[in-house]
């Protein structure tokens, strides 16, 4: 199988990369981190193709799409790259929000429509979008991150019928906290890292969900429970999130 992964150098993207390459699949890895890509190249040699691209840069994103068109079509496209911005809404500069919405919302939409719309994904193939558990709970202290992940969830749902018509499957993943540098940077002070899901475990959940052609994945017990509670009592859930996150936020990070 041929798999495309964005944000492949660190965290979940890296775990997916290692797992799929370990299972003998060919991976096209996208990231803005040149050194990280060079390291992947060194480890995996001709099993991997790495492309450096900053997905917050519109010209680079469109160039990337053109470049990918010269490759054979993919079987799985995993649109994983994402960033966050945490702190009081008003304390974070506007340009950080623009960058966040470009990477988290605009880029996956452009890549999904661009790849699926020009037959660059094989029939029977899949696109995976990484939303967030904040879709179920709200996320005071990261309202624009929450916006970006809600948008991508609705987009995934909206393109599902059109994709089904051309034989493509859509998976949306709603992960809670994962034990990555990303979580470490943005978690409130004193949060217990051992309670976060290991990226390898999440990657395995995602691979299973893709194989089973599931539509939605709330990985793990906490995510499943939060989803139900968020549906039953959305406002109570957001208020609880304010207590456990917003009121404990340390430094503003973006």
């Amino acid at each position: 199988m041929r798999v495309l992964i964005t944000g492949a150098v660190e965290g979940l993207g890296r775990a997916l990369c290692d797992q799929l390459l370990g299972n003998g699949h060919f991976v096209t890895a996208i990231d803005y981190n040149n050194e990280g890509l060079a390291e992947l190249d060194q480890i995996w040699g001709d099993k991997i193709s790495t492309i450096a691209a900053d997905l917050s840069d519109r010209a680079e994103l469109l160039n990337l799409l053109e470049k990918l068109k010269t490759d054979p079509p993919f079987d799985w496209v995993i649109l994983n790259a994402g960033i966050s911005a945490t702190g009081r809404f008003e304390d974070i500069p506007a340009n950080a929000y623009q960058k966040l919405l470009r990477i988290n919302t605009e880029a996956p939409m452009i890549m999904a429509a661009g790849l699926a719309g020009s037959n660059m994904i094989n029939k029977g193939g899949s696109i995976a979008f990484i939303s967030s558990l904040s879709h179920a709970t709200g996320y005071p202290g990261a309202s624009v991150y929450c916006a970006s992940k809600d948008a991508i969830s609705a987009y995934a749902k909206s393109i599902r019928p059109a994709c089904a018509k051309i034989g493509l499957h859509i998976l949306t993943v709603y992960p809670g906290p994962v034990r990555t540098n990303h979580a470490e940077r943005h978690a409130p002070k004193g949060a217990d890292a051992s309670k976060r899901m290991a990226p390898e475990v999440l990657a395995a959940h995602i691979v299973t969900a893709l194989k089973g052609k599931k539509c939605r994945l709330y990985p793990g017990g906490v995510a499943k429970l939060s989803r139900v509670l968020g549906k039953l009592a959305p406002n109570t859930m957001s208020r609880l999130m304010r207590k456990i996150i917003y009121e404990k936020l340390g430094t503003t990070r973006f």
Partner: protein
Amino acid sequence: MAEPRNILITGGTDGIGLKLAYTYANGGNNVVVTGRRSAEDVKGLLAVNITYIKADQAAPDEAANAIIRALAKLGWHHCDLAILNAGNGKAGDPLAENSRDLINRIDVNLTAPILISHALEELLMASANSKLVLIGSTSHRGASNFASYAASKAGLNGFARSLREEWRGRVNVQIIHPGPIATNMHDKAGFDPGIIKRIFLNPDFVARTIIRKIKKGRSPTSISFAARIIDYLTLRNWFSS
């Protein structure tokens, strides 16, 4: 009579925004509307008691800056009510939406209202009882003919939900999701709803309901066909106008 309030309405030269602007202006408030056309082009559309700011949301940061600069020039030291209503849409096969469409949709419908909220923060906080109202859409749950539009409105919903908690006790953040309305937005969007258009919401009813819902302040809240029936049953529009 109550003190006149400082009210900002984005996308106020057409559709629901225009109706809201007239209603608030006739109530004796200081109303400022924004749009992307030149001041010259909208001259005939707006009453003399409504001020116009040109702010094209296709460039979200420039739009937010233009609004703040213009409000400062008008001598606003506070804003009591901001209704972020501007938005666009285009119907069709979601896989045929090109990158320009997608970029424009997210910039105009999602990034711009977020950056405008961000820029308005000081003015909103300076008012004792201020409200930030985002106009969403019932399509925020997903719509296969309006994929990027649905995504942008879902983004607004997530934004409002989280910011409402952050600003609780300071500014009432609210999102209102109208169902399909019989304005010319569907024509602009290249979508002919056919016979279904008969059950589309009447713009006067929607504007009236939005004003009522802003007074109540609950969020999220939708305006759907069911709300139309309730409107009839409560005889509200039998006695008014």
